[in-house]
């Protein structure tokens, strides 16, 4: 299986094909509905973002609270389409990777083609298993949003499939 290191490199993104299984390792950020709204508002106001979007990957997740001996609680993907309205602006500002589940809008697919991005999908409802692949978590913004806070996380061998590649091929439309 293909191993991908984060942050994503342009050359690597170009090799990815919708449907192929990959293991992600490296650094990504967590954000979902409320955090996306805030990030986009900050960009529109010209404010400095809490993390550098350039080349970054965002995992759509709102984990359960960690117990004392855990890095993170259950941490599977949430439905990506709710973040669709925010993606074009984030893409213009350097976002390269997205990790979630489910179909994306035409606008997102257009942004993926235009900005040479990639969308990964992982198994919805496998939060316990996926939590094992997360080796660190640090909240870096919006702690008042609790599970929806933005965190920097390190992952190791995080199992996904390529959902949308730079050509806009969609895992959910593959025939095989």
């Amino acid at each position, binding site marked *: 299986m293909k191993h991908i290191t984060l942050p994503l490199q342009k050359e690597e993104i170009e090799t990815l094909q919708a*449907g192929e*299984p990959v293991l992600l390792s490296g650094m990504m950020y967590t954000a979902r509905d*409320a955090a996306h709204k805030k990030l986009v508002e900050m960009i529109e106001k010209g404010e400095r973002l809490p993390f550098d979007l350039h080349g970054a990957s965002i995992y759509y*997740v*709102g*984990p*359960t*609270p*960690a*117990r004392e001996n*855990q890095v993170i*609680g*259950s*941490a*599977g993907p*949430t*439905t990506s*389409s709710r973040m669709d309205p925010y993606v074009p602006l984030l893409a213009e500002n350097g976002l390269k990777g997205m990790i979630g*589940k*489910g*179909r994306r809008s035409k606008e997102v697919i257009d942004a993926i083609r235009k900005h040479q991005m990639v969308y990964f*999908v992982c*198994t*919805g*409802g*496998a*939060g*316990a*298993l*996926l*939590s*094992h692949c997360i080796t660190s978590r640090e909240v870096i913004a919006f702690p008042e*949003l*609790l*599970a*929806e806070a933005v965190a920097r996380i390190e992952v190791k061998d995080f*199992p996904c*499939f390529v959902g949308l590649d730079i050509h806009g091929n969609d*895992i*959910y439309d*593959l025939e*095989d």
Partner: protein
Amino acid sequence: MKKIEVERISQSIERICGQIACVYDPDILASICKGRENESSPRSIAAMDTLVQNAQIAVEERIPICQDTGLAIVYLKIGQDVALTGGSLYEAVNRGVRNGYLGHFLRASSVDDPIYERKNTKDNTPAIIYTDIVDGDCVEVSVMAKGFGSENKSALKMLTPADGEQGVIDFVCDTVAKAGPNACPPFVIGVGVGGTFDSCAVMSKKALLRPISVSNPDERYADLENRLLEKINAMKIGPMGFGGNTTALKVQVEYAPTHIAGLPVAVNMCCHVCRHGSEVIE
């Protein structure tokens, strides 16, 4: 008159919340394993295997199966010969949800206002509470932890009598097609038919409480459940939307009398976890 302390209801809810977040219903897990044997594409097999492995990890390590531990929906069947004592029933229900979610490290997923502030209430309250007054001197407590990946894909339509069975089938299939990969298939699908706009939706959710090994006792509706399941699995959405034969594990239809002019139908989509549990307090 028999007295039951509301605190016992609270403790029951707390226990069920912790249990259903981490432990699959054995029938559903068995159904996922059976479905896995009917898959042939590598991605669909991988998705089903992941679900089974995830279920094991969740039980062994007491980590929630899914990070969306849901809104708590509490159904109380209260025997009419019971006197509830020791304070407010609804406060006890919400205390049970609060203790269950905080005590078992479940996610607080409730916001106070849907449009404006959307401020997290921090303890997953308030619960959605339904009460039925029934015969007897017991209280049956059922809790459903409903995630919104699937809830968001639920739908209701006011059909007319002329639409008949075919109208119901078309609307259910259309709703499932629109849910597609986003609502975490394989699904359990609750369908309400009849009643009114509001009661029909309640029925579709209550249908999800029925064990998946049990069909509607009315043969016509049991047959409708089977035919719907067949049609839905023929759509080939498959596990996680990766294509394949297991789009749904079960369709549960409930019906009720309705108006001469109406045929309401509600479809409550549920993901593969379909968390619910019950206790009887005597």
